[in-house]
């Protein structure tokens, strides 16, 4: 019972942080919020209950190393390097994207009530929060214009997928999880290089301006 309440709390905080990300436009805070979200995510495997095996340890330490230390460090380096501090609110205003976030949360609760799952679900909140985090990450990805925020949106989406994958925790081989870590690692690395190139080529990081043609 006690594990369940801490699990529910952690899940609620993860979604709260996703909402905070929607309402923030300062790049430094965005990266910090993401790191905080990932650090809570790293604790979730232990809150699921059950015995503590090598599998859980590897996942938690991997999340801590990659998502809490390495990626935020690299993103902060990028923020310093390109010397921009703020993202524009994007095509949606802050209020609209926050309200959309609320709608998406409602949608994910509706979706997960319709979903028929076999096997353990651990907590009634796990699947809705996985969906919410996924959707909010996607909203960040499509509504913001600066490349760094888009990378964070992608990573928040990945956090949602991570939560969902916890359902299959006991049956997934460790190798798959390690492969996912490698994917994120390489993905962010490539995006970092692309961001750098956009910056060098156009003197800004606004991806919405890539659509306009230049002579």
């Amino acid at each position, binding site marked *: 019972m006690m594990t369940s*309440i801490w699990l529910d709390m952690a899940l609620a905080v993860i979604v*709260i942080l996703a909402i905070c990300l929607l309402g923030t436009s300062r790049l430094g805070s965005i990266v910090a919020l993401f790191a905080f979200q990932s650090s809570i995510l790293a604790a979730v495997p232990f809150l699921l209950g059950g015995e503590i095996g090598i599998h859980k340890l590897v996942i938690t330490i991997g999340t801590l190393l990659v998502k809490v230390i390495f990626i935020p460090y690299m993103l902060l380096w990028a923020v310093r390097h390109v010397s921009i501090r703020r993202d524009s609110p994007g095509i949606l205003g802050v209020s609209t994207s926050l309200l959309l976030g*609320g709608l998406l949360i409602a949608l994910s609760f509706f979706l997960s009530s319709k979903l028929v799952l076999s096997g353990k679900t651990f907590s*009634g909140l796990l699947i809705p929060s996985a969906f919410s985090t996924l959707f909010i990450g996607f909203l960040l990805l499509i509504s913001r214009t600066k490349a760094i925020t888009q990378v964070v949106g992608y990573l928040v989406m990945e956090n949602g997928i991570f939560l969902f994958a916890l359902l299959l925790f006991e049956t997934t081989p460790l190798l798959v999880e390690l492969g996912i870590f490698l994917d994120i690692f390489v993905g962010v690395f490539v995006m970092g290089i692309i961001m750098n190139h956009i910056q060098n080529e156009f003197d800004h990081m606004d991806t919405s301006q890539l659509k306009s043609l230049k002579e």
Partner: protein
Amino acid sequence: MILVVSVLLRFVACLLFSPFLLGVIGKTKAFFAGKKGPPLLQPYYDIVKLLQKSGVYSLTTTWIFRAAPLISMSAVLIASFLIPFGDFKAPVQFWGDVILFAYLFGLARFFTVLAALDTGSSFEGMGANREIVFSCLSEVVLFLNFTVLVVLSKSFSLSQMIGDRSWASWTAVGPSLILVIVSYFMILLVENSRIPIDDPATHLELTMIHEVMVLDHGGPDYAFILHASAIKLFVLGSFFVTLLIPFQSHSLVINAAIFFAGMTGLAVVIGIVESVRARLRMNRIPSFITGAFVLALFGLIIALARAS
């Protein structure tokens, strides 16, 4: 007899303790700024000083201007009877008192706004305008918070909504509660015109929201306004503290100590928020309130998902 004494004690505690919260906020801000700051009891000195002065009234104002501070003061005092202060039960409780509670503050605000318009000053009209716009938004969120608590407690009375908590209820409905608490804290800042919404210590009329409306009040009227805003902070804050801390101890003294320590802690937290945050630009304030709205909505969805 015991009932009368306890009600009187509550009333006196509310009157006497509330300016102390403002003092604590001021001291915390001074500490963060590396200053000595005004003494902890400064709000009391201010109120006593103002009460000894005589009022000065502009010739363009009517009775509304004179009545408004008294009405605000009495409205918040009546509201203080509806809410439990920690373990001290509310003397007045009935089905639906939560709506009366919200609109007593609405009444106080309405008369403050009318008095501001009564002076005919363009600055005060501007302040009244802003106050109404932002309170329209925050009222929605406040009621959404109440709705979550109604769903959780299945009761429509303020005392049962927030008072009947135990540690067991935290383990059962923790996620909803934590969302309501964060969302309510944001609304607490809006309602009491604290930073990041409004700066109570500002001296520039163009950036004020609440303070600009009371510029023309002086003497005892201003003392009432200051004291009423302190009591408002105390009453809304006690909602927060009672909701956050389940009072389980059977000793009345310990419960009272926990409650007043909680209130002081809340004042310190508000002081810290005011020290580390800058005031939001006017056009960002609706986003802040929308954030509180989404959090409360999320809490409501979780509560409903549990209930169904």
